[in-house]
């Protein structure tokens, strides 16, 4: 199967040769398949956003290549197709909303693509259903919560029928409820709609839910793997000043003190199961 996104040995230098020269990406390679939910974590300045902006040709590599469904992002004649294939959602919901009602906002992208009105209506309804915002068609975007606004922004991207969505810290400005709304939405896009999702985040509890985690540091990929593989290295993550979920940290500390825990739990339920099995109390479902 062809990956939706293929990043091959990409390096990128800001202001090359100039006074502000910064090597933001160094020999980064990454593939993202349809239906896959990939979380990218790392500090500000680690290269996450620079990488994301290569995925729909906002940036073109200084060295190396990025392919979107086989189209090289250097090929300007394919720019339109590339941008339609890969949609972007950004951090601040207030900067992405352009219209005065939710449905007009979602319709904005397909209208610009010249999609016929009947088809636009269908796409808008479908997209709003996918982000669980049906019934808010006539709402004024500025009256919505942050989580709702981000879901409208995602619907706007979905209405363009992309094969991949790249979300650059879409939850950074949201409260925990808004974060879980947005996260549930993007997971569904990957698992049910087969869309490739690249989710950039600072929240480790979100990365835990991904199929794959990529950790960026200093413009390189420092770690990659399943969430369990990545979070089973708390010392490494801490050396990068990244958090691990509290239960993962606790299991690591318990193991270091001699407790016979074997796996790195990612969720409260997993660690509860492991502890319960060792001390011999009930598994799941409350009172034993």
């Amino acid at each position, binding site marked *: 199967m062809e990956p939706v996104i293929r990043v091959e040995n990409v390096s990128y230098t800001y202001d090359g040769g100039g006074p502000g020269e910064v090597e933001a990406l160094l020999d980064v390679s990454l593939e993202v398949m349809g239906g896959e939910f990939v979380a990218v974590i790392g500090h500000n300045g680690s290269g996450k956003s620079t990488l994301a902006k290569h995925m729909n040709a906002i940036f073109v590599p200084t060295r190396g290549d990025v392919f979107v469904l086989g189209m090289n992002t250097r090929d300007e004649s394919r720019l339109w197709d590339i941008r339609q294939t890969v949609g972007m959602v950004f951090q601040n919901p207030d900067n992405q909303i352009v219209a005065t009602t939710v449905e007009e906002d979602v319709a904005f992208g397909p209208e610009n693509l010249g999609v016929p009105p009947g088809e636009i209506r269908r796409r808008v309804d479908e997209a709003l259903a996918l982000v669980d915002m049906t019934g808010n068609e006539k709402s004024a975007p500025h009256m919505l919560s942050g989580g709702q606004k981000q879901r409208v922004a995602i619907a706007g991207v979905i209405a363009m029928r992309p094969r991949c969505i790249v979300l650059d810290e879409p939850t950074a400005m949201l409260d925990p409820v*808004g974060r879980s709304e947005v996260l549930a939405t993007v997971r569904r896009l990957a698992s049910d709609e087969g869309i490739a999702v690249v989710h950039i985040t600072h929240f480790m509890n979100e990365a835990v839910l991904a199929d794959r985690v990529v950790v960026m540091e200093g413009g390189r990929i420092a770690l990659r793997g399943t969430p369990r593989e990545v979070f089973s290295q708390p010392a490494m993550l801490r050396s990068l000043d990244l958090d691990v979920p509290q239960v993962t940290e606790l299991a690591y500390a318990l193991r270091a003190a001699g407790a*016979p825990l074997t796996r790195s739990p990612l969720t409260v339920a997993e660690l509860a199961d492991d502890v319960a099995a060792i001390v011999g109390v009930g598994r799941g479902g409350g009172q034993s």
Partner: protein
Amino acid sequence: MSDATSDAVIEVRDVCYTYMRGTPLARQALTDVNVRINRGELVAIIGRTGSGKSTLIQHFNGLLKPDSGHVLVGGRDIWRKGVALRDIRRQVGLVFQYPEHQLFEETVVADIAFAPRNMGMSQANVDEAVREAMRVVDLDYDALCDRSPFELSGGQKRRVAIAGVLAMRPEVLVLDEPTAGMDPRGREEVLGEIRQLHEAHGYTIVLVSHSMEDVARFAERLVVMDGGTVAMEGSAREVFRRREELVNMGLGVPQVTALMAELAARGLPSTEDVITVDEALRALLPALLGASGRANEGEREGEVGA
């Protein structure tokens, strides 16, 4: 006259507030709110978006005027005739969300000096206040004074913004989600700074936060807002004991608190209310080591049997 006891810095009494009052869009944001901030405390206000947190803290320094009820700062009703709000806003320094968006001067020093200069402080005093504020938030004066604030890292920018408020020498520092949108390194940096302000410099601090893990580590007292009222108040331990109510409000508890509750439900005798990783470690380790000792013996017996 005031019956405020000497240790209350801010008192909110029976406050109600409605946005766009008298219009069809009127929305009551606070209903009969009573909150007291004592001198030297570090209090966290939690609650989901729209619960009234930000509305409440904007009453602390008179940015919003209550429809009914009273706000007292240092025992004085701030809306009484003759009270200068300018003094109140100097006493109670408010750091908004994303304060770095409000940086605007060409140099770090000019930015931090803006408020004290505007308040009529003399040049010599302004200089001293700026140096002091930078020292307090760990920004190197000599290295940064002439730099543009826009060239700094996210954590540094935010500390410049906080220093700008500290330079007014407030008694209370109120911060609305001071770590919002920051990466983990920036979050630790800013939280460490706040703790330092409290512990080493004795500031009274009120912060609004969405991170239950953070408030469990830092706050001495929590105020939980829900639907424009104060739903709970107490130490983090007392508040996180009421897990179900918090979840119903769209809030949560630290992961380790949820873990201990889950284990207790499965029959593990819970010894204490756990709110931090260290506490969970101490609570669980004896049972786990004891069980593994027994298991090892069991294995050895098994080997003999085989």
